[in-house]
């Protein structure tokens, strides 16, 4: 391989990984930006999503797509229930809410550990082989995930910005009372919003399951990536998250090409800090009151 191909390959790798990161973090961005909740259990729902996809395909013999849909629906319901049963008292308290999700994360991870054991599971790829764009090779399974990721994002963006329920969700979270006097059934929207965020996390886990491995501990990575994406992209800004994820993917890809060791990761954190100082509202962030 010569350098020009290497650089192009790194760009493609970076963009793909960036999209995977975006998928991992978008549910977190939603819950964080819209509901102002730092959801430390995000990674655990990602993990549960991966397990769900695994068991539905391996044990129940479902095809992948229905398994994905079932995972999403199940996760939305589970998320809504958990919000209603556990997180409701913390709706207006960012800090206590955050700690409650830490507790939730502990419970979920260790329940998974009890149920599934510590050893990794592996799911067969949905598709095999390598797709070639000229001299650049990309595993076909990743191409699929990327297409899904893009679809999910567009839908989510449209839901939040253009649909009535999306707007209502933002309104409820900003002011429960005032939203209710716009005719919105406020009580329904908190669980729904959290549920959708959880659903997205689970779908990301399910989509990523065939690419990576599945174990009770796979939630850590998406959580950290989500943190970084949210800082870089700005509070709950979906386009911001998209740009941030791609930038992160590219930075890591080129970084690994240029530096050794943890230099790349250190660099990422330095950029994150610098970014917050220069543009505290994120790459595409707008001012807010």
């Amino acid at each position, binding site marked *: 391989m010569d350098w020009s191909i290497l650089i192009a390959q790194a760009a493609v790798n970076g963009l793909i990984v960036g999209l995977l990161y975006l998928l991992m973090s978008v549910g977190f961005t939603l819950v*964080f930006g819209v509901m*102002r909740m*730092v959801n*430390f259990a995000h990674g655990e729902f990602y993990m549960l999503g991966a397990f769900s996809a695994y068991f539905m395909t391996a044990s129940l013999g479902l095809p992948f797509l229905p398994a994905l849909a079932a995972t999403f629906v199940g996760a939305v319901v589970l998320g809504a229930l958990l919000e209603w049963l*556990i997180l409701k*008292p*913390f709706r207006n*308290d*960012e*800090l*206590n809410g*955050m*700690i*409650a999700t*830490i*507790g*939730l*994360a*502990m*419970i979920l*991870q*260790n*329940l998974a*550990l*009890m149920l599934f054991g510590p050893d990794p599971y592996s799911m067969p790829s949905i598709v095999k082989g390598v797709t070639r764009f000229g001299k650049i090779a990309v595993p076909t399974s990743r191409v699929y995930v990327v297409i899904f990721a893009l679809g999910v994002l567009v839908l989510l963006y449209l839901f939040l910005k253009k649909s009535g329920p999306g707007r209502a969700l933002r309104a409820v979270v900003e002011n429960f009372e005032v939203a209710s006097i716009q005719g919105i059934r406020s009580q329904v929207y908190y669980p729904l919003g959290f549920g959708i965020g959880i659903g997205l996390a689970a779908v990301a886990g399910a989509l990523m399951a065939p690419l990576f491995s599945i174990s009770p501990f796979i939630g850590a990575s998406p959580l*950290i990536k989500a*943190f*970084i994406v*949210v*800082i870089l992209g700005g*509070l709950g800004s979906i386009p911001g998250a998209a740009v941030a994820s791609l930038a992160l993917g590219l930075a890591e890809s080129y970084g690994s090409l240029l530096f050794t*060791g*943890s*230099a790349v*990761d*250190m660099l990422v*954190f*330095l950029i*994150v*800090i610098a970014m*917050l*100082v220069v543009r*505290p509202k994120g790459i595409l962030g707008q001012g807010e009151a």
Partner: protein
Amino acid sequence: MGVVIFTIIAVIPWFSGPYILHLAILSTLNILVVNGLAMISRSGQISLGHAAFMAIGAYVAVLAGTQLGIPLLLSVLIGVAATMLVALILGWIILRLQGVYFVLVTFAFGELIRLVLLDFSNVTGGANGITNIAPPELFGFVFDSRTRIYSLTLVIAIVSTLLIRRLFRQPLGQAIDSVASNPSLAESTGLSVHRLQVLAFVIGCGLAALGGILLAHYIGYISPESFNVGISIDLLIMLVIGGRASYWGPLAGAIILTPLPELFRGAVQTQHIFYGAALILILRFLPEGLAAFPQAIRKLGTRLKA
């Protein structure tokens, strides 16, 4: 009342075995460190990178001792001072951020410090850490038994609590409170939000550094992983569960949460589930933290009477 309970709790370890003493020492160190976190929190900011400042203090002090042969007391001073300097520079830059942004950036800083400690292994010993750290020593008196160390850390914990209590009865402390409760009003009455928050941050990180240094000398071993983000989260949990708004908060949080995992330790499979559930329940029923427990009881009492 609180004082009486605390005194009883503080005396027990002297009459128990080394294991209880160990937990007691950790609790007192946590009181010190969480006091630092409380200081920052009272200025209206929440740090998720507190353990990183314990790490900076501990590594600087220990390396100053082992590599440069600096005597202990001086190395402690150097460790704390270096940490406060880092906190000053960092705080000056990042304290213009508010709310969750600040939380996230301190988180990022914590990760950065961990990576630095891992990567510059020729100085820091990398992931293997530093072993054989000598026990603390003051003017020739070596704190090599647990009872001695406990006496030292207990005194330091109490002194730090009293100092903070005193500070918040002074105009300076009240100014810090003002900044937390209504920053724009504070600013418009001549209180520099930025400077006061930086001050609180520097003091808070200084306390963390002292705690980190004492921990290093007590355990005799440090590694980057002794101060990872998980520890920062644990500290924050202690603060919130203990109560953010009162001097008793860090005391209650550290004294109850440090040994709490021991309660469930026997239940190997389920201990973390119990712990997580305990967190959620405490937050649910005592959102102001354990320090508000007496008030909650009183309120319940009046409601029952009425």
